[in-house]
């Protein structure tokens, strides 16, 4: 035991923290925990039980979904391994189809969307000054659907005919091919799994909306809520309004697959385009369900580590809703190449470009927030800054894609793959890591090893760009997506992308080691090691069972980093 402790401690302390970049070192990671009862109320067994405490459920979500992230990442490693050479020589073509299908499905429905739900679960009640979520039992049920649904999905690798192979969109008629003829096949398992995850999401949506509308502390008006809560509210409203469309799509698909109906079979007078409309009516807002909380995370972290209030708080709050509303009206840009009539293409080209406006409001607000700030380049800040910068790139390629003449050429090529990975990985996953590092001390009561955090950041930042940047020239030169073999002219960029991908795989190792090691042996922290604003920092680390000794009364605006009225903030300025 003592040897293990020595090794872990050695690892944590191996990389010293360079104090030079911390101007005046105002954020002290203080260790005044002795004057507090810092013994956590929970023991590890609770994390494996049906707990109704939103903090336990939040951690359960985050750890479970991180495991699915690693699994989805493993699938990606195999894909990148295949794409090192132009020939299809590593895996069977059918297996390759299954790999990219499950990679996408796992990353979207078992990593980002439920991780966001977990983070929101942990933070929202604390941020609004509530004791728990509105419906704690429903909350627990919603979580416990996730592991079986995920295991069910992954089990499809073992059935006859293999996993679903029609991509994470599962378009008919290709998704209706059932060569083995059995009713239990990869595709039907995919549908059932996604259905279960959708039910979990609807439960979460009802819970979050009710919590945010009904359970804010006295004085916590809507325009005093942290931006993270605004983005969660917007994202969950999107879930409630748009998920039903996906439910309809996959129910109809299931009927076609299993009961012999003909909704989507062209040879029987069915219409596969209806599936595409129903699918994308949800799946476009889904990307904002994923992105909005990430934007919320940036809005929490950038002010804290530049010691400036968030610029344009009210505009950013309204923009969070604006993005949600506009995103409901853009879905047809995924159907530009599906024989959509020209008038419809024009309409949705305009609406898709419009969504850049509230998004731009946020990016400008973040830029103005760090402008002239006193930057503290701790790990969460590095991930946040890196995420915002890469988001500008990914957002621009998105606006390029919204133009019909451009999209016609690059649709279904690697350009699109590059664009969305710059969003889901280089923005959203970066934001998720930023959030994990930022709130790790609050959740665990311990501080992570800052040096290893920086190593993780640099490996991730380099890997992220190496992997996904090459996809843009590949797409422009005509390499299509979802293929295991390609024209030899594309090999150069593919090798760079694959090496970047393997680097990303390796980059998770210092992260996991840091998290586990710090959880066990990290230095104890005070209530507010980052001297951040927000109600979650006014209670102990970790918070007590009912979050606050006494429900707080709120009488100041959010992000009051420059406020002279708050002595603590003034002290940490110099």
């Amino acid at each position, binding site marked *: 035991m003592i040897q293990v402790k020595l090794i872990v401690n050695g690892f944590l302390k191996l990389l010293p923290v360079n104090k030079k970049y911390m101007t005046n070192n105002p954020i002290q990671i203080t260790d005044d925990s002795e004057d507090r009862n810092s013994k956590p109320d929970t023991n590890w067994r609770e994390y494996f039980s049906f707990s109704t405490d939103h903090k336990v459920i939040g951690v359960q979500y985050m750890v479970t979904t991180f495991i699915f992230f690693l699994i989805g990442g493993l699938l990606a490693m195999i894909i990148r391994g295949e794409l090192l050479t132009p020939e299809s020589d590593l895996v069977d073509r059918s297996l390759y189809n299954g790999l990219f299908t499950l990679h996408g499905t796992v990353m979207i429905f078992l990593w980002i969307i439920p991780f966001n739900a977990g983070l929101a679960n942990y933070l929202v009640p604390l941020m609004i000054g509530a004791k728990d979520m509105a419906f704690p039992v429903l909350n627990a049920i919603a979580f416990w659907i996730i592991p079986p649904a995920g295991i069910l999905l992954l089990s499809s690798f073992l059935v006859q005919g293999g996993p679903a192979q029609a991509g994470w969109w599962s378009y008919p008629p290709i998704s209706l091919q059932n060569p083995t003829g059995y009713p239990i096949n990869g595709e039907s398992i995919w549908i059932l799994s996604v259905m279960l995850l959708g039910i979990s999401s609807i439960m979460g*949506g009802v819970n979050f*909306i009710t919590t945010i509308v009904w359970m804010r502390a006295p004085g916590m008006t809507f325009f005093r809520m942290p931006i993270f809560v605004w983005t969660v509210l917007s994202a969950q409203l999107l879930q409630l309004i748009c998920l039903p*469309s996906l439910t309809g799509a996959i129910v109809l698909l299931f009927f076609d697959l299993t009961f012999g109906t003909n909704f989507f079979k062209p040879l029987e*007078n*069915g219409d596969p385009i209806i599936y595409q409309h129903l699918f994308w009516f949800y799946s476009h807002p889904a990307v904002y369900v994923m992105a909005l909380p990430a934007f919320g995370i940036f809005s929490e972290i950038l002010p804290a580590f530049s010691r400036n209030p968030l610029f344009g708080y009210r505009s950013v709050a309204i923009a969070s809703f604006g993005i949600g509303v506009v995103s409901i009206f853009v879905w047809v840009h995924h159907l530009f190449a599906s024989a959509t009539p020209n008038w419809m293409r024009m309409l949705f080209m305009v609406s898709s470009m419009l969504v850049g406006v509230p998004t731009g409001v946020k990016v400008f607000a973040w830029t103005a927030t760090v402008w002239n700030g006193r930057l503290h380049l701790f790990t969460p800040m590095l991930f946040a800054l890196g995420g915002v910068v890469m988001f500008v790139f990914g957002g621009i390629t998105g606006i390029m894609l919204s133009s019909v003449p451009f999209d016609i050429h690059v649709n279904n090529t690697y350009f699109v793959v590059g664009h969305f990975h710059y969003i889901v990985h280089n923005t959203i996953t970066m934001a998720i890591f930023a959030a994990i590092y930022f709130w790790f001390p609050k959740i665990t009561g311990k501080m992570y090893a800052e040096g290893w955090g920086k190593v993780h950041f640099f490996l991730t930042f380099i890997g992220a760009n190496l992997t996904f940047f090459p996809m843009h020239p590949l797409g422009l030169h005509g390499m299509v997506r979802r293929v295991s073999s390609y024209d030899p002219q594309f090999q150069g960029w593919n090798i760079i992308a694959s090496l970047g991908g393997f680097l990303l795989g390796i980059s998770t190792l210092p992260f996991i080691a840091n998290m586990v090691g710090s959880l066990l042996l990290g230095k104890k922290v005070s209530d507010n090691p980052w001297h951040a604003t927000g109600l979650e920092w006014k209670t102990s680390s970790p918070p007590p069972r009912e979050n606050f000794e006494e429900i707080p009364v709120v009488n100041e605006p959010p992000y009051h980093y420059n406020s002279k009225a708050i002595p603590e903030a003034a002290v940490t300025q110099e």
Partner: protein
Amino acid sequence: MPNPTHHIDESPIRFDRLVQSLPNWLQRFLPIGGGIAHDHHGKGMFGVTVFLLSESLVFLSFFFTYIALRLTHPNWLPPGVKGPELSQFIIFNTVVLLSSSFVIQAAENALKRHKIIKFRWLLALTSGMGIYFLVAQAIEWSNLNFRLTDGLMGGTFYLLTGFHGLHVLAGILLQLLMVSRSFIRGNYNSSHFGVSATTLFWHFVDVIWVVLFSLVYLWRT
């Protein structure tokens, strides 16, 4: 505990005053001010309402599919089939289902006035009307000359009526659960959130039927 909700940095739109100007029955669903939820009934009904709005959109996606397929496909009907008939039987079943909404509302009102016996009878009557509707639907299904796999019309018809029927069944089970709960002495003395939720769910089932009925039976080509 003091409840200071408005300060200088607040928006001119006063959410509280807006809520207070709404009718009483609507106010039940909305919170007033940034207060803690002591009112579990209000919080619960808000949650159930939000859920039912979302569930309605699932039916909307089915209705959209039905409308889109029907408008764009000239060979909508399978050969030799005329489609579901708007018979007196169907009209009677519709009347029964829609009236049952009034019955369940009367049941909830009786419960609010603590008339448990009346509540039980009215709720049981509602379940009975719901069971009648389901049985009648089954009879109608057995008398049809097309199946689920018979063309686009067959598929959409059984899909729509089938999922609606499942929701009717769920409503009946909820009502029976509420009736059985009323036998626990003093159960509904302070609050009856479950009954209110069940009533709302039954109204939702009715609204869906009205739309479905119009689209499937009233829409003649």
